[in-house]
């Protein structure tokens, strides 16, 4: 039986696997997508999201966003909220290894006209200053103990060390520093892998892009203005990166711990070992939460230092200060997190641990966690497309409670990396892109081929699905002109 037949259509954008689909499901699993996107998903997504629905304490639905595809344990695009007072668990597979992999968007007061003549110079210099590739080192020379301070303090540490402006913190989720990060809960090995990586992009799908907001691509002029998109063909800078080897090691350390205690100590039986977890209210669960928060902060700090480097590059090239270029942060969003949030479930106010793996938080207007500037508009949501197709700025909506105010995070792969590399050649791709006005620098041709636009879902379809589902609303679309690929 084709798997789509096991799905119950709830609406044009909600597809449900009922609790009867699989033994042990506590709640239904729901895929938020158009029929076309659902049909394009790999079968493993159904298995994975229904496995998530069996985890202890899961509330309402295990969800998969429109850009979902299969990942370690949870699908990438998976969202699950656990009631921590009802035995809810925390699972590294529901957060991802690149803890707090996320996006940051910066505006400038430059236009395409200003930047076009110097584009190569800008991209080449960004490529030098923001190291990309596997295992690269940042320019920050930190001792292990300084690094431990940094992971407890996040982007705040950077501001105190003059890598940025105070207002940057206001426009970062958790103000760039999530409370409760405890460096005594991370291993020396994790420190070893991370202490020299602050300020680096990393590899894979991480990138830094110079983009333009064409007037015809501004969908909501009023909101765009409030988010700082004010002039025609305005230049913005968007980048995507995370906690590098550090986050990966934290996840690995705790997966191993959880595998040891999960069944013998807590009697939790799971279907897929990659869903290893521990009760949130257990010493192991609490320790991981505190260690994972170090990953969150490392990533906020990483993006803060990268922002600082970007400001330096633009300032040097244009001979004007970053303040004068109005290089302001629109927002910084996390993709791979678990956070304690308050949500209303069946009329009751509950504290839930919301796992978002490859999913962006998208609080609607009026949410008390938003900075004053966005309290009325709702939260800016930044969704990166493939380097060829463009990216989006969206806003969270009041109608997003069905997904615990979560939306998509990217366009989602449609083919494996290997397949992409067989289909495209990095060098040729670079030449093609250049012919189309996109200048790309990369450390690896093969890696570049992996990120070919054709290896991803159509970003426009993903964005349209989130709008149709009422979980986020497009504000502007950006077209890349320069790309530093990790």
């Amino acid at each position, binding site marked *: 039986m084709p798997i789509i037949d096991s799905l119950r259509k709830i609406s044009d954008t909600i597809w449900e696997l009922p609790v009867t689909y699989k033994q042990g499901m506590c709640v239904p699993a729901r895929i938020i997508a158009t029929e076309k996107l659902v049909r394009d998903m790999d079968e*493993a997504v159904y298995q994975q999201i229904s496995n998530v629905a069996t985890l202890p304490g899961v509330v309402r639905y295990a969800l998969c966003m429109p850009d979902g595809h299969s990942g370690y344990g949870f699908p990438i695009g998976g969202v699950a909220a656990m009631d921590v007072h009802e035995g809810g668990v925390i699972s590294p597979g529901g957060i991802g290894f690149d803890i707090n992999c996320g996006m940051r968007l910066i505006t400038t007061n430059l236009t395409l006209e200003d930047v076009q003549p110097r584009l190569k110079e800008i991209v080449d210099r960004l490529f030098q200053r923001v190291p990309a590739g*596997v*295992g690269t080192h940042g320019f920050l020379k930190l001792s292990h103990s300084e690094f431990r301070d940094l992971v407890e303090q996040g982007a705040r540490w950077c501001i105190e060390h003059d890598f940025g402006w105070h207002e940057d913190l206001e426009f970062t989720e958790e103000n760039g520093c999530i409370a409760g990060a405890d460096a005594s809960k991370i291993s020396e090995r994790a420190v070893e892998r991370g202490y020299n990586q602050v300020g680096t992009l990393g590899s894979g799908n991480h990138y830094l892009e110079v983009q333009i907001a064409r007037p015809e691509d501004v969908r909501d002029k009023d909101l765009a203005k409030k988010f700082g998109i004010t002039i025609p063909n305005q230049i913005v800078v968007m980048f995507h990166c995370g906690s590098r080897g550090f986050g*990966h090691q934290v996840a690995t350390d705790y997966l191993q711990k959880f595998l040891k205690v999960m069944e013998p100590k807590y009697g939790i039986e799971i279907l897929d070992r990659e869903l290893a977890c521990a009760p949130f209210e257990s010493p192991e669960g609490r320790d991981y939460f505190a260690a994972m928060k170090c990953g969150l902060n490392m990533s906020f700090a990483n993006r803060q230092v990268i922002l600082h480097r970007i400001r330096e590059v633009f300032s040097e090239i244009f001979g004007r200060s970053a303040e004068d270029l109005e290089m302001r942060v629109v927002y910084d969003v996390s993709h791979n997190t678990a956070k304690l949030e308050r949500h209303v479930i069946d009329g009751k106010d509950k504290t839930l641990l919301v796992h978002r793996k490859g999913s962006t938080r998208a609080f609607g207007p009026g949410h008390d966690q938003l900075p004053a500037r966005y309290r009325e508009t709702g939260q800016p949501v930044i969704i990166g497309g493939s380097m060829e197709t463009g990216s989006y700025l969206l806003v969270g909506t009041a109608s997003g409670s069905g997904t615990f105010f979560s939306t998509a995070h990217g366009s989602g792969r449609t083919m494996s990396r*290997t397949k992409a590399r067989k289909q495209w050649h990095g060098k040729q791709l670079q030449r093609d892109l250049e012919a189309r006005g996109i200048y790309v620098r990369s*450390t690896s041709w*093969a890696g570049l081929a*992996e990120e070919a636009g054709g290896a991803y879902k159509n970003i426009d379809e993903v964005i349209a699905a989130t709008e149709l589902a009422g979980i986020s609303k497009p504000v502007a679309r950006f077209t890349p002109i320069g790309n530093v690929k990790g």
Partner: protein
Amino acid sequence: MQPRTPITLLTGPLGSGKTTLLRHILATQRERIAIVMNEFGEITIDTKVIKGKNVQIAELGGGCVCCSLLGEFEAALNEIVEKIAPERIVVETTGLAEPEALAFNIQEALPQRRLDGVVSVIDADMLIRFPELGHTTRLQIEGADILLLNKIDLIEAGQVEPLETKLREINPTAAIVRTERCRIDPELLFGIGSARKITRPKHRHQSEFESFIFTSGKIFSRDCFEGVVNSLPASVVRSKGFIRFADGGQLFNFVAGRWELEPFESNRTELVFIGKSIAGEKEMILHTLDECSIEITKHESRMSKE
């Protein structure tokens, strides 16, 4: 031109036994081998650690070298080859890694190196306790050339067969080798790809694994040889080497019943057979092979005419 250094990728889920296998390889292998591992801490190292730009290197006894990545993977491998010129490199991936990307990097981005094979260590006990395979585990099984079904001592004897069937459904071509604590002759794991250089197994073997060599200056009948190969006892798990047929030399590669021949410049016949307690089969195998030589066939036919 320098021979391309063969690289073996070692993968498998968390806790399946990758480090145990590495320890075992280090203890039994005498080739100049470089092990690239996630963390030195997993193997006790007494000697001095040399810190390079992309890699930390620790020389062990017996020509083995342990390396831990600092920089970019490709750069680190190049540095290892330049500094220590190993005969072989074994790369341990983390339990969370999907092997396909690394395998591709080696094949495409490192023309001076050669991917010899992907070895996945799979925990039999885990497969019993978690019958639903995870996404990454599945990819690790799919991507393997050799699957070590490890920890079979922890499951019931009757459970092994169904597990092998399950693995074969996911990866019909990989050789499956049952192990306890990853005790396997490392020679079984290496030279899977079309090896350009074959070294004799000159090391001490694990007690349960034995090997013997067949050498000959004669020319062999291909049909006869294939017949012998197809009827090798199941205790022979691995064989490789050169064989000379009337139309030229061939490289022979045999892994757990599957085998291939590939044209190769060689005038000699030299084959290694490895397996569990195969000493008893040695004479029979050597004899049947020898009977495949064309000289003997001609001689016999002359004799029958006379």
